[in-house]
């Protein structure tokens, strides 16, 4: 127990808890939009393509965050543009962007001379090494996203639900869709730091799946996802520290267990209701 209290006095652990808190809030808002619009596959494409940016950044010797952000935003807007124009099958476009991004990343990492220090932390996440600057970026994006989705809740919801009808009603659908694509890309990139490319999307989808057991109201799904995202992240964080395993994997594992537990509870409840 004293070990646990001592843990909280370390600044790296305080940072990790802050990161878990902020990403849970961010992923709850953005993830509910992703799940509702059924664009999980698109988002996975964006996530993986950002690896190209990380590789390029290593090669050029700049901060990998900027490379990842550049690639992710470009892919997100590109996919939205392709699906908007309808010239190319959307799933083909996603597959191309996905694999091209990964390929570019691998090539650049290979031709970069020397040792690439925290490449593994980008793939698998390392919430325990999140620094003050990372936290600030996460916080700013979370505040901007909350303001945008709060103020424009209706048009964002309407253009996601029925774009064609919203267009007829004079809603600037294209603007809201592109803005949300931009926000999704940025949210993914700032969460990669703690979750890792391979697993980050789960933080944007599993808490939502759990929430949808309780509610089918957009706003409520966001709120419940915040709670489940946070509990899952914190338990995952402690396990990651205790068992010395990558934080991303520990958090996703906890989130999944949490989902299965509630699923089971609801299943038992429905059985009781029948009898």
């Amino acid at each position, binding site marked *: 127990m004293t070990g646990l209290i001592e843990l909280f006095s370390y600044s790296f652990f305080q940072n990790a808890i802050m990161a878990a808190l902020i990403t849970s809030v961010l992923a709850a808002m953005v993830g509910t939009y992703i799940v509702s619009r059924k664009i999980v596959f698109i988002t996975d494409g964006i996530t993986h393509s950002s690896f190209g940016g990380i590789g390029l950044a290593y090669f050029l010797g700049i901060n990998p965050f900027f490379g990842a952000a550049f690639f992710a935003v470009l892919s997100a807007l590109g996919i939205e543009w392709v699906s908007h124009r309808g010239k190319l099958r959307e799933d083909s476009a996603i597959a191309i962007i996905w694999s091209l991004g990964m390929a570019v990343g691998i090539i650049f990492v290979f031709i970069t001379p020397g040792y690439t220090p925290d490449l593994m932390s980008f793939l698998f996440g390392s919430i325990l090494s999140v620094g003050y600057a990372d936290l600030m970026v996460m916080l700013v994006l979370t505040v901007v996203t909350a303001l945008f989705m709060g103020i424009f809740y209706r048009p964002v919801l309407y253009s996601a639900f*029925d774009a064609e009808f919203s267009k007829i009603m004079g809603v600037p659908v294209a603007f809201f869709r592109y803005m949300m694509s931009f926000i999704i890309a940025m949210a993914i990139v700032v969460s990669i730091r703690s979750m890792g490319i391979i697993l980050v999307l789960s933080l944007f989808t599993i808490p939502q799946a759990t929430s949808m057991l309780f509610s089918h109201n957009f706003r409520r799904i966001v709120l419940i996802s915040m709670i489940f995202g946070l509990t899952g992240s914190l338990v995952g964080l402690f396990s990651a520290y205790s068992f010395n395993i990558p934080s991303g994997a520990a958090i996703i594992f906890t989130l999944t267990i949490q989902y299965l537990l509630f699923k089971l509870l609801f299943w038992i409840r429905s059985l009781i209701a029948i009898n």
Partner: protein
Amino acid sequence: MTMPIASLKGIIAGYNDEPVLRNIGLEVFANDFIGVIGPNGGGKTTLIKVLLGILKPFKGTVEFPSGKIKIGYLPQASQIDKSFPISVKEVVQSGLQPHNKWNPVLSARQKQKVVKLLNESGLQALAKRPIGSLSGGQLQKVLLCRALINEPDLLVLDEPNTYVDKNFEYELYQWLKELNKSMAIILVSHDIGTISSMVKTIACVNGDLHYHPSNTISAELLQVYKCPIDLIAHGPIPHRVLKKH
């Protein structure tokens, strides 16, 4: 002569450079009730999309000679994602024209209007329910309310009678008859039988458009204009049976 409220001239439209509609013209007047029929892929929905301004025609013009009009639109049920987490009330609210598109906060009057329409259409008990929990008929009612909340001058319905039971269909047609007193209606349907008993005029779309200034479906209309539909039309009164064609 009265002016049409909407006028389509020389429309050539389609997707990916493939024209579906070839040189179509249509005029809609204030109290019209036009039934649009035609085979699948004949361009019924394309015609509507051009009229609504969501599909830009390759050629031709869409004009509103008597000034800008409000159009209410009920899309095909298959276009609606029933698993989307949105409530009945929210869907109806989305039909309100925002007074300022950058500040979409609803006024107290608008909120009241939604409540009133939900009461009138018997949906008040479902207001907070997610649309995924509704029956086909209930969902169509919600979508119709969404189309009506803005008090349109023209109501456009794309296949409103799919996925609904006969009771609802009857209720819907009574409702439309009432609505037709205050707005023009365009009703797209593959169900030419019900259409002929309801509408005042018929337009047959099959690449071209043929306007038929009455609601009797003649063999000529179907054959000469290549509307390959054969059926018996059951209107309440008079009972019409089509000639074999």
